[in-house]
């Protein structure tokens, strides 16, 4: 089976998937029922020779695109959706030997998922955000979780800065203006707003937020932030909550994780505090922003502009935003470049190897 990744990205994946990686050799039902010692002995020897098992945890429509090729040489990848037996049976059968799972894309990992995998000790996330993983349940079950670490940070930070420059300097609007052929006719194009000297408020100074700050410093911006905890090693001004940050900022860049505590963290009060010239850039999760309120504030001119890579109900985007020239829209692409995928491949491989060698994980997520 050859799978070719299409599109003009420079990373071209073609691999042949061996049948035994995705389909298991089922012992016959009879011998299983008999539970004969001979069969068990044979199984033990075979298992010892085999690579460590890793469950590919995925919703039916989501593939483990970028990682199968990297992981296959080192682990026995078990994929219940590619088995000929029902998923429940597959999981019951293999549960005892599944100590680690890798999450394909944003496939949800729920308490129910964990309940069916009593031997599970590690959940390997493969995305920048982990709001689709029940971190509480993992903590209660003593299950470690690894995240994307720094793999995506630069690309997301680049994109956040790109969105901000686009909104302030009207790049996409200007591009439309020229392409429409109106420039020779209409001549004047509205002035933009200078980036230098702007007060940037970063919501969440993690891997991504730090990279955003580093870039915007070079543009002569002033950086302040809010985070769960103040970062002592950082010289940017700290605010205890988003409202205070918004009051002192011209721009809010949302880069924090989506958790129950941060749901709609950018709400009406924050938007009011930011003010009518304020700009919101969201490269986190749609639900970090009260989208309905944002649309209202933008259409009423109560907020200066927005650059949005994520939405509450992707791929649905509020149509009212399509008519606004001070808004830049993006189809959740901040993360993905061939280079960030390569970084992720290396990180996931390294985390799994470390786990099975009883060594420290490279990008563990702190579970609260």
């Amino acid at each position, binding site marked *: 089976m050859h799978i070719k990744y299409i*599109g*003009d*990205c*420079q*990373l071209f994946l073609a691999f042949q998937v061996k049948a035994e990686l995705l389909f298991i050799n089922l012992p016959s039902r009879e011998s299983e029922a008999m539970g004969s010692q001979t069969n068990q002995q044979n199984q033990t020897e075979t298992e010892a020779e085999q690579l460590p098992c890793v469950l590919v945890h995925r919703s039916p429509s989501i593939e483990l695109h970028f990682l199968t090729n990297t992981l296959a040489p080192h682990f026995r990848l078990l994929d219940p959706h590619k088995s000929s037996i029902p998923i429940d049976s597959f999981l019951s059968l293999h549960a005892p030997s599944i100590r680690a799972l890798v999450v394909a894309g944003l496939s949800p990992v729920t308490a129910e998922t964990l309940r069916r995998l009593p031997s599970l000790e590690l959940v390997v996330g493969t995305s920048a955000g982990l709001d689709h993983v029940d971190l509480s349940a993992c903590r209660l079950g003593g299950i470690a979780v690894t995240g994307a670490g720094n793999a995506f940070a*630069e*690309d997301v*930070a*680049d*994109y956040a*800065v*790109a*969105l901000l*420059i*686009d909104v*302030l*300097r*009207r*790049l*996409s609007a*200007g*591009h*439309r*203006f*020229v*392409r429409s*052929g109106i*420039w*020779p006719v209409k*001549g*004047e*194009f509205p*002035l*933009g*707003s*200078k*980036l*230098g000297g702007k007060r940037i408020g970063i919501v969440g100074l993690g891997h991504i937020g730090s990279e955003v700050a*580093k*870039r915007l*410093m*070079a*543009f002569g911006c002033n950086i302040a932030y809010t985070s769960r905890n103040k970062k002592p090693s950082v010289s940017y001004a700290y605010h205890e909550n988003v409202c205070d940050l918004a009051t002192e900022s011209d721009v809010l860049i949302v880069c924090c994780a989506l958790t129950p505590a941060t749901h709609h963290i950018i709400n009406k009060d924050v938007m009011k505090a930011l003010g009518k010239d304020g700009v919101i850039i969201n490269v986190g999760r749609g639900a970090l922003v009260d989208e309905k309120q944002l649309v209202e504030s933008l259409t009423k001119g109560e907020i200066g502009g927005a650059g949005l890579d994520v939405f509450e109900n*992707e*791929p*649905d*985007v509020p149509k009212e935003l*399509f008519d606004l020239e001070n808004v*830049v*829209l*993006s*189809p*959740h*692409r901040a993360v*993905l*470049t*061939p*280079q*960030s*995928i390569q970084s992720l491949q290396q990180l996931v491989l390294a985390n799994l190897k470390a786990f099975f060698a009883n060594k420290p994980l490279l990008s563990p997520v702190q579970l609260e």
Partner: protein
Amino acid sequence: MESIGVLLPIPMNTYLEQELEKRFNLFKLWKVPQKTQFIKDHADSIRAVIGNASSGADAELIDALPKLEILASFSVGLDRVDLKKCREKGIRVTNTPDVLTEDVADLAIGLMLAVLRRLCECDRYVRSGNWKDGDYKLTTKCSGKSIGIVGLGRIGSAIAKRAEAFGCKISYFSKSEKTHTNYKYYSNIMDLATNCEVLFISCSLTEETRHIVNREVINAIGPKGILINIGRGPHIEEQELVSALMEGRLGGAGLDVFEKEPEVPEQLFELENVVLAPHVGSDTVETCQAMADLVIRNLEAYFQNKPLLTPVV
């Protein structure tokens, strides 16, 4: 000073216009049907001309204004001004350096990001409703790309400083090597173009730099490289640029300037690896005001016999 005639050939900026009107006898040439006659009629009182990126003072205009003493340009580039003739006739020339440096550099980086990450195409993808049918493809990482800068002056240096924050390695080609930087110097544009992934044009337009980016240089940048122009349209052989993009010999382009602004080759409109801007390098409210203030202060200084703030001639 209200009797001093100042010629404003084309509309430039509302604030600038208002401030000029407060202080001088301002002639708005674009509102006049018979321009040549108008200039003849008022030649005796016109002592200053305001220039910008698209309008300066060529030999013909200078000859038509025997009382011209100063040209104050609402721009940093002076390629539209016959500087030689100004020197000969003792006409002072001022421009607006420094105040617009950051904005132009910001736009240059913005164009690079927009081209590499297909920002405008992504926006279009969402607005057209295409996202419902599937994800947009992958785009190329910006951080860490090797940058080449043609002209390491104020703007070029500001571009370099920003690009460094993205982990980019900087190299440059300039009239002369700059001893105060650690960036790698190339003595010619071909070597620079061959050795970088993103080439920025940020030098002034002169006889030497006209069409400095020709077919050879474009081919040297290559199908994976991109070209960003925030200098002047004539820096690039535009037809060669268009054919290189159409044929895939150049990876992409971000253009704020064109050879015959505001006309832009239509073949560029549908290319997804091209981002076009209507010459907005310094077009922010803040910077336009700063530029206008500088033009006014130069004029006031001149007519009060004080030293000019930013003279070039």
